[in-house]
């Protein structure tokens, strides 16, 4: 029991222990009117702006010199507040030693004076006075390209415009700088030309590359702008994912890594001037002409990916094709949306697939063998030539139930991984309840804003502890549940709900009458007892092993009460005669009820006038009382098998007296009598008869009415005095006599043979049975 309790407590113990490296990004709050201290100078700056994709990717290489007298290590990079939140994957490295990794960067809130927000780059080592360092700054700017014209025909070319300043925004003075623009094609119909910024033409064009500068800006104040706008052809969709939810579900039991991604996608390109034409679209599609609509998404899947699915708001999208990986090559999931996604159109869908977990999960080496390491791609996403920008990405790593001590890390390489620093990824742990979970699965949620498909190759490493007891929680919970059902079934089965038991403990109508009469029986007796045949009594019960106490009784009113007219017999012969009747009764009783247990049957023959009391002190009374005492001692029932309705007595008080003494003993009469021919047995509840005689119940009581045999017995005993009276003072009509004769043919005989007897019958000479009878 202790073990069970300890196990249950251990299973229910909270599993979400605090992970050690969860981060919540925060921003520095700079004072109003803040201006970065002029401790640096940019001696040379080259900005490369790549416009080949549907977002702007900029790389700035700048030689920074400390012009202060003190070593400095905080370098400020300004952006206007409306652009700042659209800057993604910001990273700064030492250009000459990129393998040393990215520098720590802090984000600031907007400064009210100039509306700028800053990235504060913390150099790993303070830069000494007059020393230089070459910084490689890379980032993407989302949603900075706008289509012009804003609406086009379905098959028209699409043009995008991009506006920027010829002078790269910087917090410091820059000696020389230039900007290189890389367009997707040479079709650049409009671009700004500058005058007076440099000698010669500006920009210089070389294929799809336009170069503004170099400019000598040593005397230009930081923050000075010279606006430039370029307009170039981009007949490709501007795919923007408003929200990507990516779930990675780790299953130890299934050995599976299930991935599901939910996309809310939008094309930010030129909208259609006219309504969409299916015919034109079919024609364009047939020619495979360039289009500004999303026609298809190609999604490379890792080797071993199986069971892919593609579902949108309507249901399964059948216009997709999966080319499984062969060997170690990647598979390809080709997704065709239900409709081409033109500018301004939205499409949301979900895709998912499975992988073997063995490729992604390892058991950590070392003494702590309960620790696991998971290495998965941070995001995957479609691989498109035009690129994809993600405004918000939520990655959920659903670990097994009970996983704790969760840590994560984003892998850094020598090049940018397209992600911001780990401290700018919002991470939290939560619990997710799904199939067969009791506590819920530990879930690591990582949220990043403003990403591009540059982050496709980034890797996420998660370590967690998962013990054996955590692993066994699911099967053990089901096991415990089913075992509880079994134990409950066994326990319920132990409860005896049988009627037999209730007859001792329950309250019967008779008891109710006794209570009404103000008496409490010594032990309740169920009136239903005698409604059942004694043969139905459960003989397997220990207390009834010997069966009920059965007494066969036959009575003669006098020595002439036999079927042989004119025969003169003495009392011994009469007892012999009665006994012969009982032998027939015993045989018939056994035919009807079978062998009632192992207890020897008792026989009692009585020669007793009608309506005379059989005293309980007489030998017959004692004998019958002893039979009931035996039944009481054995906790069984007592049955008087009577030969005829008056087989025992016709005196009410004789019956009532005996029943009253043994009201705790189930007591019934089996009357072998006839309502015509042949004879049959009537099962009479003696206690009901007693209750009636004591005026506790009326004849029309449901307990009597519902018990036909008992009611009949009572009516016949009530009728006997009338019969006796009518015998000598005929008051009954012939029809009434016939009706009475149907109850017992012997009643009919009263008028035929018993002419000798007077109104007051004689008392028999001997009411004692013969010994052994």
């Amino acid at each position, binding site marked *: 029991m202790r073990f069970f309790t300890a196990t249950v407590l251990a299973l229910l113990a909270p599993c979400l222990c605090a992970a050690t490296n969860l981060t919540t990004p925060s921003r520095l709050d700079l004072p109003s009117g803040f201006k970065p201290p002029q401790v640096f100078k940019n001696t040379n700056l080259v900005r490369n702006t790549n416009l080949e994709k549907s977002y702007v990717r900029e790389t700035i290489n700048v030689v920074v010199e400390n012009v202060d007298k003190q070593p400095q290590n905080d370098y400020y990079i300004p952006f206007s507040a409306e652009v700042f939140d659209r800057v993604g994957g910001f990273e700064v490295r030492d250009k000459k030693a990129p393998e040393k990794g990215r520098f720590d960067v802090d984000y600031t809130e907007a400064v009210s004076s100039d509306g700028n927000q800053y990235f504060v780059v913390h150099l790993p080592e303070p830069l000494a006075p007059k020393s230089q360092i070459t910084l490689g700054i890379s980032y993407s700017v989302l949603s900075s390209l706008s289509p012009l014209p804003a609406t086009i025909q379905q098959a028209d070319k699409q043009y995008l415009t991009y506006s920027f300043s010829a002078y790269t925004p910087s917090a410091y003075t820059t000696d020389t700088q230039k900007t290189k623009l890389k367009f997707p094609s040479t079709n650049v119909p409009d671009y700004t030309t500058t005058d007076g910024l440099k000698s010669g033409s500006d920009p210089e064009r070389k294929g799809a590359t336009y170069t503004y500068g170099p400019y000598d800006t040593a005397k230009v104040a930081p923050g000075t702008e010279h606006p430039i706008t370029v307009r170039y052809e981009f007949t490709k969709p501007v795919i923007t994912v408003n929200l990507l939810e990516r779930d990675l579900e780790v299953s130890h039991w299934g*050995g599976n890594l299930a991935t599901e991604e939910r996309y809310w996608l939008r094309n930010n390109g030129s909208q259609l001037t006219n309504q969409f034409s299916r015919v034109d679209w079919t024609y364009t599609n047939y020619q495979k002409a360039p289009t500004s609509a999303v026609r298809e998404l190609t999604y490379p899947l890792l080797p071993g990916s199986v069971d892919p699915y593609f579902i949108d708001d309507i249901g399964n999208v059948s216009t997709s094709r999966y080319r499984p990986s062969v060997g170690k090559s990647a598979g390809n999931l080709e997704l065709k949306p239900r409709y081409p996604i033109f500018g301004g159109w939205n499409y949301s869908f979900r895709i998912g697939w499975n992988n073997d977990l*063995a*490729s992604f*999960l*390892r058991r950590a080496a070392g003494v702590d063998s309960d620790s696991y390491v998971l290495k998965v791609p941070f995001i995957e996403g479609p691989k498109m030539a035009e690129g994809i920008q993600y405004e918000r990405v939520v990655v959920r790593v659903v670990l097994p139930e009970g996983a704790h001590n969760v840590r994560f890390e984003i892998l850094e390489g020598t090049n940018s991984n397209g992600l911001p620093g780990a401290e700018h990824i919002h991470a939290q742990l939560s619990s997710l309840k799904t199939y067969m979970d009791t506590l819920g699965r530990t879930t690591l949620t990582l949220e990043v804003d403003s990403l591009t498909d540059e982050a496709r190759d980034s890797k996420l490493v998660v370590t967690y502890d998962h013990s054996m007891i955590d692993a066994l929680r*699911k099967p053990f919970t089901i096991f415990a549940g089913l075992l509880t059902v079994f134990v409950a079934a066994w326990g319920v089965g132990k409860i005896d709900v049988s009627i037999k038991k209730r007859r001792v403990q329950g309250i019967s109508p008779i008891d109710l009458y006794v209570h009404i009469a103000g008496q409490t029986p010594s032990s309740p007796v169920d009136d239903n007892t005698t409604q059942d045949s004694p043969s139905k009594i459960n003989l397997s019960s220990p207390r009834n092993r010997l069966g009920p106490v059965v007494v066969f009784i036959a009575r003669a009113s006098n020595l002439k009460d036999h079927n042989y007219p004119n025969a003169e017999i003495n009392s011994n012969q009469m007892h012999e005669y009665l006994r012969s009747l009982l032998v027939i009764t015993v045989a018939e009783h056994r035919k009807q009820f079978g062998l009632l247990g192992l207890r020897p049957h008792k026989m009692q023959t009585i020669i007793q006038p009608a309506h005379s009391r059989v005293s309980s002190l007489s030998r017959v009374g004692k004998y019958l009382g002893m039979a009931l005492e035996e039944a009481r001692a054995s906790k069984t029932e007592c049955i008087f098998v009577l030969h005829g309705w008056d087989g025992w007595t016709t005196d009410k008080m004789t019956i009532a007296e005996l029943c009253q003494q043994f009201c705790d003993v189930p007591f019934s009469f089996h009357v072998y009598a006839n309502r015509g021919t042949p004879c049959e047995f009537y099962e009479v509840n003696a206690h009901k008869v007693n209750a009636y005689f004591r005026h506790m119940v009326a004849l029309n009581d449901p307990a009597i009415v519902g018990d036909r045999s008992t009611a009949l017995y009572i009516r016949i005993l009530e009728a006997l005095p009338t019969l006796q009276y009518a015998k000598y003072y005929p008051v009954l009509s012939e029809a009434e006599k016939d009706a009475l004769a149907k109850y017992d043919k012997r009643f009919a005989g009263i008028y035929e043979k018993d002419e000798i007897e007077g109104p007051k019958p004689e008392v028999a000479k001997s009411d004692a049975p013969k010994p052994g009878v």
Partner: protein
Amino acid sequence: MSLNEVWEAASATPFIPLIAKDSQFSVGFNLLVVALVTATLFGLNRSFLGIVSLGFPAALAFGFGAVFMICAAGVYV
């Protein structure tokens, strides 16, 4: 020690599930059949001895069988 180094250090101990994906259905099905048979036998004679000799293994088989069967059905728990 970075987590990537932990990953590299664990290269010799890839995760191997208790039951391979291909065997999940057969194992789960057989365990459920065993659970059904033993539970039925227990139902015929519900006694304390029956709980120990039949109910306990039935519950155990059902617990593991259900987990493997739901995995075989594609719901990886």
